[in-house]
């Protein structure tokens, strides 16, 4: 069950400004009333977009066809719903560049093979300005080199080393990796007193 190796993501950027954008905004809860992730793409940021009356980044013609979403701080905070990265993936995004990401959101992205990389504030500001001025340019996330390259220059990208390795090696679907532990899983269970009625032989 090894997955695709993700060494780089290249494409046009879409700049979505603002901090602390939560997963309720990314995909409103009413679209969680389903037993699949089908069709979520068209509802990404639905309420924000309606309220912005066409002025939302996802409706901006300049960013049409973009595959990299560029965001601010703490993107994806709140609910653990995987529906959020699923919706953005189905909308057409393959990766995220931001100041920082909420932990559960970032974990969900990794499980889907969607890199989340961070930039230093000055670099992020420069990238956002550059992509807004010249939305047709190519933005390249190079996980091997840990860089983001664009007309704003080549910048150092932050990503947790474990996550980077999972993406580079195609082990981001963790099930196969975890199964690889074999009986060690049962051995761990064996030493947990609460799984064995706190039997007296395990008292220590």
């Amino acid at each position, binding site marked *: 069950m090894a997955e695709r190796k993700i060494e780089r993501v290249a494409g046009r950027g879409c700049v979505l400004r603002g901090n602390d954008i939560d997963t*309720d905004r990314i995909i409103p809860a009413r679209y969680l009333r389903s037993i699949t992730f089908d069709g979520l793409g068209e509802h990404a940021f639905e309420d924000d977009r309606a309220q912005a009356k066409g002025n939302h980044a996802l409706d901006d013609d300049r960013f049409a066809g973009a595959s990299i979403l560029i965001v601010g701080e*703490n993107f994806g*905070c709140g609910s*653990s719903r995987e529906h959020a990265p699923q919706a953005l993936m189905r909308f057409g995004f393959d990766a995220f560049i931001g100041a920082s990401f909420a932990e*559960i959101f970032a974990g969900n992205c990794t*499980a889907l093979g969607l890199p989340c990389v961070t930039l230093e504030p000055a670099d992020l500001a420069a990238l956002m300005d550059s992509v807004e001025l010249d939305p047709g340019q190519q933005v390249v996330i190079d996980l091997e080199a840990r860089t983001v390259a664009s007309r704003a220059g080549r910048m150092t990208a932050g990503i947790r080393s474990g996550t980077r*390795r999972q993406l580079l090696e195609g082990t981001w*679907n963790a099930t196969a990796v975890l199964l690889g532990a074999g009986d060690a899983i049962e051995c761990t*269970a064996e030493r947990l007193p609460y799984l064995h009625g706190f039997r007296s032989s395990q008292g220590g």
Partner: protein
Amino acid sequence: MPTPKSLLDKIWDLHSVRELPDGQTQLFIGLHLIHEVTSPQAFSMLDETGLPVRFPERTFATVDHIMPTDSQLRPLSDRLAEQMVVALERSCRQHGITLFDPTSGLQGIVHVIGPELGLTQPGMTIACGDSHTSTHGALGAIAFGIGSSQVRDLLATQCLAVARPKVRRIEVTGELARGVYAKDVILTIIRRLGVKGGVGYAYEYGGKVIERMSVEERLTLCNMSIEGGARVGYVNPDAATFDYLRGREFAPRGEAFDRAVEWWRGVSSDPHASYDDRVELRGSEIDPTVTWGINPGQSCGVTESIPSPLQYPEKERASVAEALAFMELRPGEPIAGTPIDVAFIGSCTNGRISDLREAARVAKTGRVKPGVRTLVVPGSQAVARQAEAEGLDEIFREAGFDWREPGCSMCLAMNPDKLVGREISASSSNRNFKGRQGSPRGRTLLMSPAMVAAAAIHGCVVDVREIL
């Protein structure tokens, strides 16, 4: 002498199956809780692999998010909700997983029933496809939320690939004043440390205020750790924890209970454990707290005024201005007196019996202001039974509150309980995000259940200390 360790490190090391080549830990999860919203996709993915559920006896299910709170009778009148319940029932049957459905008498919000049934215990690792899984840390467990792909991993292997968090010790010293609750403590912590201050950390709560808290208050506290960015929050287990667990359905019994207590004591952080960070707050400085913005860090004491963007560092001003514009609140005006349309008491944060008792004390002092819509939603069937045995339901009804069936209700609007249009709610839940309560333009003021009851009676935000 061995190096002193934190509870997190002890539990982590005990449950570590192995270090993965990518530097993460393969962590064994002692308890997996599932519900109807985030597990169906995981079961579909699992079925595609043909793998069985590795530890079905360590997986427990309930239905909460989509349950209507007017009637739990099946089939549910909401076709999509019924379909989700049926899917969960089918998966549980197929894989031999215990499901606490409404006919069990044990159904409720997943983070209410785990502790209530004694499934949640000190020293465990716990995961659930829900961010508020941090709740269970109140009993001295390491508990965290995951997405559906990780639910699949967990079903297939009873393990997760996760990075060990750093630990921040948050000490709340002194005492809380009357009318100040665990909800106010956690809102104040988040206000102080920010909504992303906890990213990469587990929060260990301690100090006199926390030691004096009941387990239910600690559940409220740990529940909202994630709102401060911390995926994990916990309190070291103590006598209150052990007393709480004694006699619960899934807690050990007899001599096994005594042996359990012995072991549970040992998982607490050692006296000289080192922490990656320490923060201290004074309990006496915490007031009843109300949010004025669109994230749980945007709050103030009930005696304070709504802030101006100019009071914030320049880079935060745009967010504050955006929040105030959405909330239609004016800087400089006192938060007390803000009119409300809806009062919601319930949720995994504040839907337990002690929450309902505190709200009922306030409800006794008056009647719901005409025009205010109310929902009082017990967190579980057991909470509902207990409340009814104590006559709390009657107190609420007599005061004009709407007493309802257990579920997540208006915390997140996946069921019929929703704000309408520009309505503004006083809510005992955990998130004031834009649109969170079901109307894209609906607004939420988070506060303690007693404060919500007081707001319902007065039709506006009031200081509950003036009533109690």
